[in-house]
C-alpha cells in the first residue's frame, strides 16, 4: 500500500456483510490496510451522523456493506437504509465532498470475491476523485 492510498471506511453489517469480509480473508485475498472495517449489527444502525463522522475523521470514501434486499437478518425494510443512504449522499453533495464518495453494496452471503471487487473498484474510483475538501480545519 502506498502512503497515499485512500482511507476507506466500510460499515459492514454483522450478517451477510461481515460474512463477505470473512470469506475474502479465508479465500486468501489481500486488500490494502487503508480499508477499515467497522462492524455493526445491521446497516439500519447507521445514521448520517456516523457516516459524516467518518468523513470528518479523514475517510476518503465510505461503503455501506449489507445483505441483499430480502435477506436482512432482522427483516428490516431495505427502504429504511436506502433512505438514510440517499439523504447522506445529498448532504455530501451539499458539503462539496460529492455523493460518489458514499456507496452501498448489497452482497450475497459469503461472497468474498464480490467484496474484493467492490473494494478494489471503489478504491480506484476514489483515487480518481479530487481530494476531499477538509470539512473541519
Amino acid at each position, binding site marked *: 500500500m502506498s502512503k497515499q492510498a485512500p482511507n476507506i471506511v466500510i460499515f459492514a453489517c454483522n450478517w451477510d456483510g*461481515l460474512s463477505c469480509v470473512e470469506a475474502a480473508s479465508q479465500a486468501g485475498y489481500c486488500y490494502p490496510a487503508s480499508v477499515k472495517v467497522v462492524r455493526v449489527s445491521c446497516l439500519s444502525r447507521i445514521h448520517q451522523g456516523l457516516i459524516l463522522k467518518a468523513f470528518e475523521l479523514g475517510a476518503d470514501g465510505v461503503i455501506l456493506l449489507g445483505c441483499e434486499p430480502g435477506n436482512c437478518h432482522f427483516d428490516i425494510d431495505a427502504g429504511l437504509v436506502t433512505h438514510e443512504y440517499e439523504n447522506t449522499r445529498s448532504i455530501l453533495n451539499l458539503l462539496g465532498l460529492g455523493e460518489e464518495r458514499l456507496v452501498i453494496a448489497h452482497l450475497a452471503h459469503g461472497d468474498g470475491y464480490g467484496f474484493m471487487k467492490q473494494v478494489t473498484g471503489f478504491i480506484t474510483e476514489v483515487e480518481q476523485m479530487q481530494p476531499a475538501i477538509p470539512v473541519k480545519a
Partner: protein
Amino acid sequence: MARGMAVIGSSVEAAQAALTLAELGIEVKLLTPSTALGLENPISRTTDTSSEDLSRIWPLLLRTASHPLVTVHTNTEVRTITGKQGKFTIRANRNPRYVHTDLCTSCGRCEEACSVKVTSLLDGQKKAHSAIHAPIPSSRTAPSAYYIEKGAIAPCRAACPLGINVQGFVCLLSKGKVDEALGLINEAAPLAGVLGRVCTHPCEDNCKRGEVDSPVFIRALHRYVADHATGGIDYRLKAPAGSRRERIAIVGSGPAGLAAAWELARRGYRPTIFESHAQVGGMLATGIPRFRLPWEVRYREVEAIKALGVDIMTGVTVGRDVSFYDLMERGYRAFFLAIGAHQNNKLNIPGEDLEGVVDAVSLLFALNIHVGAAVGLNVVVIGGGNSAIDSARTAKRRSKGEVKILYRRTADEMTAVKEEVEETINEGVSIEYLTSPVEILGDGRKVTGIRCQRMELGEIEADGRRRPEPIPGSEFTIEADHVVIAIGQRPNVSTLNAKWLDIDDATGNIRADPLTLETNVPGVFSGGDCVTGPNNVVEAMAAGLRAAESIDRYIRRRDLRKGRSLEKPKPVDFEVGEKDISHHKRARMPALPPYKRRLGSFEEVTLGLPADAADRETGRCLNCALCSECLECERVCELGAVFHKDNAEQIEIGAEAIIDFESNGGVSESKPGYLARDTQLHLTKPGIYIVQTGENHDLERELARASAIALEAATKFERKEEPQETPYIAHTPGADLARTSEEKELSVVGGERIGVFLCRCGGSTSSVIDFNQVINEVLQVPGICNVQEISQACSEEGANWIASQAAEWKMDKIVLAACRCCGLDQICFSCTERRVICQENLSYSLTPLNNITVEFVNIGEQCAKVHRDHPEDATRKAVDIILAGVARVRKVLPSIHEEHPVEGGALILGAGLRGLSAARSLATQGYSVDIVSGPEKSGGREQKKSAYRDTKDSLLKQLEEQGIKIRPWPHALKLDGPPGIYNAELKYGSRTSRIKAGTVIIDVGEREGEFPPDSTATAKDNLLGRLLAPESYRRTTGDTDTAKLRKYTLKETGGIFITSRDGEEPPEEQIFKGAAVAARASAYLCQGSVSPRAIAVTIDSKLCRGCGDCAAICPYIEMKERDSGIACAFIDPALCLGCGACVARCPTGAIAQFIQSDEQITSTLEALLGKITCAAGVR
C-alpha cells in the same frame, strides 16, 4: 454404561437432529464418517449440500459442534450395532485424521509448511491445496481441525530397498529445505552422497512421472541434498550411544557392512568392522572408479559413521589374521559376514591364463588404488554389467589406445546402469553387441587377440532375458593386448577359514535366511553380495540394515521373524491417465566435457545439478501419495496437534437410542443388528430410527424432518428413562463476562486497569504483525497496565493464563486481540469454531474474577491475513485496531443482566396441520397446551373429503384423547408479557379467559384461518396485535428462503414461533414441520430461563419524547401512555433482536444499546483512521 443417544450421519440433517436432542437436554454422540459436520463425503471433496447452503446454515453446524452436550466423533465409520433399546453398543472404526481435533486451532501454519500440492474439485472448480488442509480447503468447518490426506506410500518410496522416503525428501527440497531433506533421508539410511551417485535407483524405475514423460531425476536430487546440506551429516540416534555393551563383529566394510554398523550404532551398540584392505568401503573403494564416486565423498560418509561409535580395523582379514574363535574369546557376541563377491568368474575358454588377461576386480582395484598400473593399447573388456562398464571407462583413462567392450546380448539386456553406458560411449569406448569370445589368442606367452563369434537372441530364459545363441560360421578375430574379463564375481569364502559355514556349492554364496540373514550358525549373519552374488549398493545396504535388526533381536533374545516380511509395501494406486499432467523435461546432469576426461584424469564426471535445475526437478514430482510424510507439519505446529503416527482404531460407544442417517446408501445391510427399512422414517427395532433422505434435497424440509424425528426419539427416550426433571441450561457465554450471581445488577464500569493480550495464533498472526512493535506502542497508552502475547488464546490453557494474568495485574478490563470479532453470545455467519471455543474457555476462566469486561478485536482475518503482503501496514493497523478496542472497552455502557424464567407450556394460535402437530408433540412431552383456532375465513371450514381433511380429523381426535380442546378465535385477543411468561387475554363477549404460556406458536398457514386477522380482531396495544398488524405481518412471518433457514441456524430468545404460510404443502410435510416447530419450542421451554441479548436496547423514558418513530419500525416497541398523557416508547429487552434501527432513528438519544453506542462507533472510527495515538492516549 450407555448414556444418552447416538446420531449417526454426516449430513446437515444429522447435525440438526443432534442439536435438537442436545437442546432438549440429552447427551448426544454424533458419529460421522467425514472430517467435519455437513460434509457427505469422508474425503470432504463433494457435498450433497451445496457450499452455498452450507454457509447459509453455518451457525447451525457451529452450534451443534460446540454444544456442551454434543460429542462429535469425526472420521468414524460405524460397523455394527448390538444390544437393545436403552443399551446399545456401537462398534466403529475411527479412521486416522493425523490431527488432534481438540488441539488444532486451524491456524494454518502446517498448510504453509506443506509442500505437497493437491488439486481437488470443489464445487465444480479445480482448487489447489496442501495435503494437510481444513476439511474444506480455505473454508470454515466444524470441527475446524485440519486433516491430512494420505494415500498409501508413493511408488518410489515403496520401491526403495532402504525404504527412503523419496517423495518426502523431494518435497522438502522443493521448499528449499536441504538440511531437513538430508535428515529425512538419514532417518532411513546413511551414505547419501554415495547413493546419490551410484545407486541403481529403483525409485526412478517406478516413478509415475515416467508414464507421462520421464521419471523424476531422483538420484540427482539425492546427490544434491547430500552435497548441499549445510549442517553436515548428523545421524539421529535411536538409543544413547554406547548404551548396549554387547560386542558385534562385522566382516567387510562395504555398503552392507557400513549400513549394518550404522544401524547398530544408532541402536546403542559399538560394533567393530574388520576390513582386509587398507581402504574402507569395499567395492565403493576398490570397485567403483573414483570418477564416479570421489574418494572425498566416501571419506566423509565413513567418518560420519565412525563418529557414531563404530570401530573400523583395516588390514585385518578375519579367518587369517584373527580367527572367529579369537573374536568370540574377546567377547564378540554376534557376527555379520559382509565380505562381498571379489572372486571373478572365469570364461572357461582357451587362453584365459595368458599374460595380459585380467579380471575386472583386479583391474579396477589396481587402477583405482595404484595410480601407476599399466594398461595396453588395445583393451577388450568382456561383459555387460556395471563392472564391465567401469573397467572399460577406467582403462580408457589409462590407455593411449582403443578400449572395446564385447557383449553377447544387445544394449537392452545390459545390466549396467543406462546412464553409465551412455557416458562410456561418450568417452570413446566402443561396444560390440551380440559378440561372444570363443578363444583368447596369444603368442604362447602374451595375449594378442580374441576369436569371437556373432550371436543372435533366442528363447527367453528363466531370468527373463533372451538366450544368446551363436550364429554358425560367424567367427572372426579381433586384436587385443589386454583383455579384461568382467562376467561377474563370486564370494571368496575361503579366506574366512570357516568350514562350519554352509556354502552353496554351485554359486559359492554363503547360505543365509533371506529374511533374517541368519546362517546355519546361530549368531552368525551374512548379507550383501556374498549371499546374493554380485548385486548393487542399495540392495547390499538393505541387507546390512536387515542384519542389524536381526542382530539386535538376537542379542535381546527376541524372535528374529516376528512382524518382519520381505514383501515390499504396496504403493498407492495412481492412474496417470486420469490426471491432466503437463509435460516437463527431465533435468540433464551436467558432466565434464569429454576432452576433460582424458588420459590420467580421474575427476568426477558428473557435476551435480545446479540449484535452479534441482528446484525445477522437484517440481516434476507428481506427489502420487498425497501426503509425503516429510513431517514438516509436525515440526511447525506449536501445539503438537499433528501426529503422523495416528492409526485406525476400533471404538465402542454406548447409547440408549440411535438415530441413523447414514445407512441411506444401503450400509445398514452390512451392519448386523439392523433390520430392513422401507419408509422414510423407520423404527427398525425399538430404539433405532433409520432416516432416509428424500429424493429432492430441500434443505429446509430436511432440517424440519430431522428435528421432528429427533423430537419424537427424545420423547420416547425420556418416557422410558424417567427423565431427570432438571432441564439442562445451555451454557451461553455471557457477552459481558462480568455476569454476577445476582439476578439484576448494574455493573458500572469506571476502572483504569486495562490489560491487552495479543494472540500469536500459533505463529500465523505474529509472522506478519511485528508483535514487539505493537507491544511497545500500546504499552504507552495511559491506563494500559500490561500488554502480553500468548500462543493460543482459544485453548483452555490460554484462557487460564489470561485469567491468571488478569488477577495478578488486577485488570478490570481486557482487550483480546485474536480472531474473535465480538464479545456477543451470538453465533453468526462469520463465527468460527475456535472463536466459540475461545469465548467459552475465557468465560469459564474469568468467571471467578468479578467484573472484568472483555473486548475482542480481530487481528487475524481482519488484519494479518488480509494485509500479509504488507507486514508494516499490518502492524500499524493492528495497533489501530487494538486502540479501537481499548476505546470501546472504556465506553461499555452499564448493562442489565436480567433473567426471565420460562414457565408453563405452549399457546398455539391457529389450528392448521402444523399447529395441531406441534400441539400433539408438545402435549406428548407433557407440556400443557392451549389451542386457539385462527380467525375464521369467509367460506369457512373445508367440508369436502381430502387428505388434508383426513389428516386434520385424525390429529383432532388424538388431541381430544389427550384432553386438549380447541378454542375459537376470540372477539379480542391480547398477548403480552416478557418472553417465557406470556400472558394471553381472550375475550369472548363478556367472558374473558386468561392463558399463561412459556412459548407461543402461531400457525399462520391454517387453511381455514384468516391470517393476518383483520385489524378489528387485533389491536396495537399488545404484542400479538403489533406482530400480526398488516404492516409488520410479512416481516414477522418471514417466508423468504433465508428466513426459513434462519429459524434453524440461529437461537431463539423471544419464544414466539411462527410457522410457514404455505397452505398447499402436502399434509405429511406440514405434520413434521409442525413437529419441528415443537422441537424448537421445547428447546426454548427446556432452557428454564431466558435473558436478553447483550445487544438489546433499553429506552430511557425520561429522554423519550414519544414521537413513535421507533415503534413505527419495530413491532416489539410499544407506545404506552404516561400519567401525563404523553406517549412513551417501551420495550422488553428480552424481545429485542438488537438490530439498532431504533437507536439510529431516535431523535433524543433515549434509546441506548450497550454495545455499539454512537460513542463506541465514533471511537472505533477515530482509532482506525489514526486519530488516536498511543502516546496521547485514548480519549
